[in-house]
């Protein structure tokens, strides 16, 4: 049997090359879609964990602030706690690289640098490359910094080169003093880690008295959880004590919704790919029925036949996986920059600087490829294995089977969503993942409804000639093959249309929201604000220059940092709530207290972003506990506002309330309202001229809006790629299906030729078939897409991100996509049509007549 398998497989591959090729391609694309997302997801977490390990690798616990920083005098308290073997303080900041014309490389691009101030005389593990030189220089030479060799190489910097960084509006000149290779501690560590003396860091960045982290190594045998509790008790409310695992879990938690959604989308591609395997297997089996029948008559058991088919398909799946692995890696590689930018923009995490393929990922690719193919082939394989020898040897078509099953499948297709809807109404709505269950049901429903719909549609076609009607009629006859191709296209189209509608609605909602909340004329933020929640701000002289401009009518100061409510990291913003011009900054959900801007000041309360309100279940009249340096304070919730930030949410309070609760702090950014009639562009230019060296981003209202939308588009770039891959698989399905038809219909086509049909007429018939399938897939998929968009907008996004999205249809975009789908269907039919055209009347055999 084994020898037979090898020789038969080779023969089949030769005979049906293009068919197998399409199958392998479909599997490869499915594997690539899933794998690329998994590679990026895993490496995003690994980049964060890698940097944590490189900086705090030896630490069993880390002390972190609830506010951006905490007082350094907590350090001796940590140090003297029984059970601590070593502890070292870290000052950290994300600073913007602003480049320096005097450095050897000229202007550097404005990336971010994760600058760490350390006490070199604590037992902190610093992976120096070569000797760090005289430590006295590190302490005394202003701006001495150690960089990773990779960054130094990228920037073309050598020891002694100077460059400029900024934190808030403060510019600081640093000098490359030594190299520190964190990659030796963890290969995934960010190359943008840099180390300097803690005293210099505090002094140069105006942060005396504050540190951001204390890493703690415990004595041998110390109980980590008991030590954590002990340290927490000694430190009080100003800081929290976490294990490295908790830090990683928090990062995972932040990303989970984003990653889950991408994973789900990638699985749709795989699902579509499985349809392709299904139809190709089926086609192959129909073609080989006589061979299988002979095998059975020669003594092969049902199990052997089944094993033969499954092994063959598994092998194809393996080939698909082998192709999908590099393809998936390539896709991940091509998109990592965009996704990484999204992650650091939205979730303030480390950038992904390199992708690592772990054994797990290889295994995943193989399992998906082989598993997906086997599952796709399971039904046809079982069907054929179950048939007896006589049935296999006599001519049969599977299309009849589906034809008779169609009503039952349709019934199931109606019952399934109804049941799911009932379940959701009764229980499901309280479960976060319910939206995905509904989406899966929706995508399963489409293939169930397809056979009957296609059959009924085609049955109603009257054939008046050798044209489109003939093409359609033919599809209805070959139902088993047609409906699978139409269904897979419908699933892909659902995904395409659903996500397009969701993104379009979200973009429009965001655009309206921006229009309401971004009202000031000029926005000024430090360059370092792009970094991971940098706590630098605008210095007083910058504020004085900015607010002193004669065209400025009102100034809206914003102080913002990351805080915690419970274990949830939130963005805490302080603004002048009394500012007359700023009354539309927070578009409120219904239910806000009357005159919310006054109430939030008088009650020392907060406005809560919708995301947080939904996730934490905190609404108007509730209180929100937030960690402050003096302990947990409870803030009454005055209103809930529409908020489209990622992460765990945001709150806003009056600046005065913020100062009382958190102590004084720098203004993070500011917005200017100009006198009526002032030239915004001119004011921006004048401010830039007045602050020529300040590392600031001074934007007009219009530019800020554009940039917000640009970040939005960047966020969904990967989603669009997944849509494309899914569509590509579906189009492969159409091509495959038409190839099968061309092969199966050789007799019919030859008969047509003998009756006088011209080659181009046959070509037209096949293109017509492709187009018809495109139309049917589009129609079904559009319905599915609208429903999927509804699920995404009203259920999934709300459950995972807490966003309220207003539905919006961009008809021109939808029309464009419909045209693309139909165009792709026609394109997919060209090769099969070409094959059909080649059919000659001589292909007609005696049997066929």
């Amino acid at each position: 049997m084994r020898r037979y398998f090898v020789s038969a497989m080779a023969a089949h591959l030769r005979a049906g090359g293009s068919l197998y090729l399409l199958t392998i391609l479909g599997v490869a694309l499915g594997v690539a879609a899933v794998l690329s997302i998994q590679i990026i997801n895993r490496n995003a977490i690994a980049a964060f964990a890698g940097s944590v390990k490189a900086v705090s690798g030896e630490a069993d616990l880390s002390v972190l602030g609830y506010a951006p920083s905490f007082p350094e005098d907590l350090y001796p308290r940590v140090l003297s706690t029984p059970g601590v073997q070593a502890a070292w303080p870290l000052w950290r900041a994300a600073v913007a690289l602003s480049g320096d014309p005097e450095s050897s490389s000229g202007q550097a691009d404005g990336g971010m640098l994760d600058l760490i101030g350390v006490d070199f005389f604590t037992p902190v593990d610093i992976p120096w490359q070569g000797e760090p030189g005289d430590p006295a220089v590190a302490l005394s030479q202003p701006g001495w910094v150690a960089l990773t060799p990779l960054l130094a190489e990228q920037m073309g910097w050598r020891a002694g080169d100077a460059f400029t960084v900024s934190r808030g509006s403060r510019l600081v000149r640093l000098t490359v003093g030594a190299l520190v290779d964190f990659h030796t501690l963890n290969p995934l560590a960010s190359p943008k880690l840099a180390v300097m003396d803690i005293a210099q860091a505090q002094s140069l960045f105006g942060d005396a008295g504050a540190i951001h982290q204390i890493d703690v190594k415990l004595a041998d045998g110390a109980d980590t959880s008991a030590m954590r509790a002990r340290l927490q008790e000694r430190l009080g409310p100003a800081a929290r004590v976490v294990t490295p695992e908790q830090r990683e879990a928090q990062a995972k938690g932040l990303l989970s919704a984003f990653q889950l959604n991408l994973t789900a989308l990638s699985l749709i591609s795989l699902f579509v790919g499985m349809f392709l395997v299904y139809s190709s297997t089926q086609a192959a089996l129909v073609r080989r029925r006589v061979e299988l029948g002979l095998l059975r008559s020669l003594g092969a058991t049902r199990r052997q036949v089944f094993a033969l088919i499954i092994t063959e398909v598994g092998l194809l799946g393996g080939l698909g996986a082998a192709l999908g692995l590099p393809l998936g890696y390539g896709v991940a590689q091509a998109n990592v920059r965009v996704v990484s930018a999204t992650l650091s923009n939205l979730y303030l995490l480390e950038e992904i600087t390199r992708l690592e393929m772990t054994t797990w990922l290889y295994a995943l690719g193989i399992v998906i490829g082989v598993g997906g193919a086997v599952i796709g082939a399971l039904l046809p394989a079982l069907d054929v294995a179950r048939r007896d020898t006589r049935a296999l040897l006599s001519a049969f078509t599977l299309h009849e089977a589906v034809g008779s099953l169609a009503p039952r499948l349709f019934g199931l297709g109606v019952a399934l969503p109804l049941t799911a809807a009932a379940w959701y109404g009764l229980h499901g709505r309280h479960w976060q993942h319910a939206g995905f269950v509904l989406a899966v049901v929706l995508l399963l429903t489409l293939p169930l409804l397809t056979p009957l719909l296609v059959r009924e549609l085609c049955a109603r076609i009257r054939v008046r000639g050798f044209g489109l009607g003939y093409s359609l009629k033919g599809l209805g006859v070959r139902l088993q093959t047609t409906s699978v191709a139409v269904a897979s296209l419908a699933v892909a189209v659902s995904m395409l249309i659903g996500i397009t509608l969701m993104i379009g609605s979200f973009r429009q909602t965001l655009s309206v929201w921006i229009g309401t909340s971004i009202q000031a004329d000029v926005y000024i933020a430090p360059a370092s604000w792009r970094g991971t929640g940098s706590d630098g701000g605008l210095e007083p002289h910058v504020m004085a220059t900015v607010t002193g401009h004669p065209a400025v009518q009102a100034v809206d100061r914003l102080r913002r940092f990351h805080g915690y409510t419970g274990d949830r990291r939130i963005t805490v913003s302080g603004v002048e709530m009394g500012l007359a011009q700023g009354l539309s900054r927070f578009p409120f959900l219904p239910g806000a207290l009357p005159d919310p801007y006054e109430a939030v000041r008088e009650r020392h309360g907060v406005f809560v972003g919708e995301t947080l309100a939904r996730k934490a279940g905190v609404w108007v009249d509730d209180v929100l506990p937030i960690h402050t340096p003096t302990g947990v304070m409870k803030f009454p919730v005055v209103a809930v506002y529409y908020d489209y930030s990622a992460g765990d949410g945001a709150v806003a309070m009056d600046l005065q309330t913020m100062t009382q609760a958190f102590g004084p702090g720098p203004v993070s950014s500011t917005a200017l309202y100009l006198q009526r009639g002032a030239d915004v562009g001119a004011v921006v230019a004048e401010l830039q001229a007045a602050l020529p060296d300040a590392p600031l981003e001074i934007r007009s209202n219009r530019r800020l809006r554009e940039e917000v939308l640009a970040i939005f588009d960047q966020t969904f770039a990967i989603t669009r790629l997944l849509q494309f891959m899914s569509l590509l698989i579906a189009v492969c399905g159409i091509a495959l299906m038409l190839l099968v038809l061309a092969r199966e219909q050789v007799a019919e086509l030859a008969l047509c030729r003998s009756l006088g049909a011209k080659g181009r007429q046959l070509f037209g018939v096949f293109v017509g078939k492709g187009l018809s399938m495109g139309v049917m897939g589009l129609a079904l998929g559009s319905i599915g897409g609208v429903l999927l968009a509804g699920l995404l907008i009203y259920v999934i996004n709300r459950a995972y991100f807490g966003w309220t999205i207003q539905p919006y249809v961009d008809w021109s975009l939808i029309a464009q996509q419909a045209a693309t789908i139909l165009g792709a269907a026609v394109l997919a039919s060209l090769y099969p049509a070409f094959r059909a055209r080649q059919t000659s009347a001589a292909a007609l055999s005696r049997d066929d007549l």
Partner: protein
Amino acid sequence: MKRVLIALLILGVLNPAVANDWKAAQPDYAWSFPRDHWAHAGYKTEWWYFTGHLTAEDGRRFGYQFTFFRIGVLPTAPDTDSAWTARDLIMGHAAVSDLDRNEHRFSEVIYRAVPLLGGFGAWPEPLIAWSRGPAGTPGKWRLSWNGSGFDFEMRDDAQAMSFSLSTRPVKPLVFQGPNGYSRKTQSGTGASLYYSFTRLQTSGQLSLDGQTWQVAGESWMDKEFFTSVLAPHQLGWDWFSLQLDDRREVMLFLLRREDGTTDFASGTIVHPDGSTTYIDGSAFAVTSQARWQSPRTEGVYPSRWRLSIPQEQLDLKVVVELADQENRSRLIGTLHYWEGAVKLLWDGLSVGKGYVELTGYGTSSRPAL
């Protein structure tokens, strides 16, 4: 590579090349006591070194060491606005040798000399130096002037050891070298300012493994400050502080070359009346008679010597009380040295006690301090 900064810095202490902006020890230094018991900024290195023999009420015998080092990083503090701005490091070493149980324990601290972590006091405040205890141990290590002698205390919970001792001089302060100028090289490029209290009556408390003893005995205190001591070819030193039962004290040091031969040696005899005689290497002979190899660092240390000073009619056998009195740093990987209690024998009879320090063994690198 880790912790290499500390090691480099400490090695830098001994390197004359770094001495540019630092003060060098001068033979005409104008001493002023008690003010000179406090720190001397501007010199790269300074130490307060206490060693001694203590006996508990129950007769149990202990040797101990307590040292604060000031390690100058910069001659003047940088102009930075930060509580971490440091000019010096403070390093503390403490050891207890339980002579009846044959056990030696070592504890250490090293911090930036900053208000959060440790530092050096200024006369006339009693506090001379202090530091936080080792990680995991509450409290501070302290050295202060009590008007006539020194009080000091240390605690290390991880090593389960602590002591708090008070000392009072039995004999007056002596200079080690003319006007306290102690040459370390033939050429005079290396020298320190060096004085001692050779006999300090000592009492206090000592705890090991939760058991506390009232202890009493005699100590020796060395105070030295300098900028460069070792010449490049000098690898380490053997240093002896011996208290003879006849009320004489002897301090000897021998600076060794890499091949183990003596490059420079010097010493001081303190007579019963407190008067001193300075002797050079030609006036005494020290011969190693036995060796002990550290199982941890593989350093091979001498463990018994014959010591003769003909002009003082001294012919002593110096025998270690306990072979393993090696101090091995856990904070600075390359740092280890032998510092231990010894007994003095003459014709088989006990004639006194002392402490010996052996550095530069078991490693090709130069000693930490």
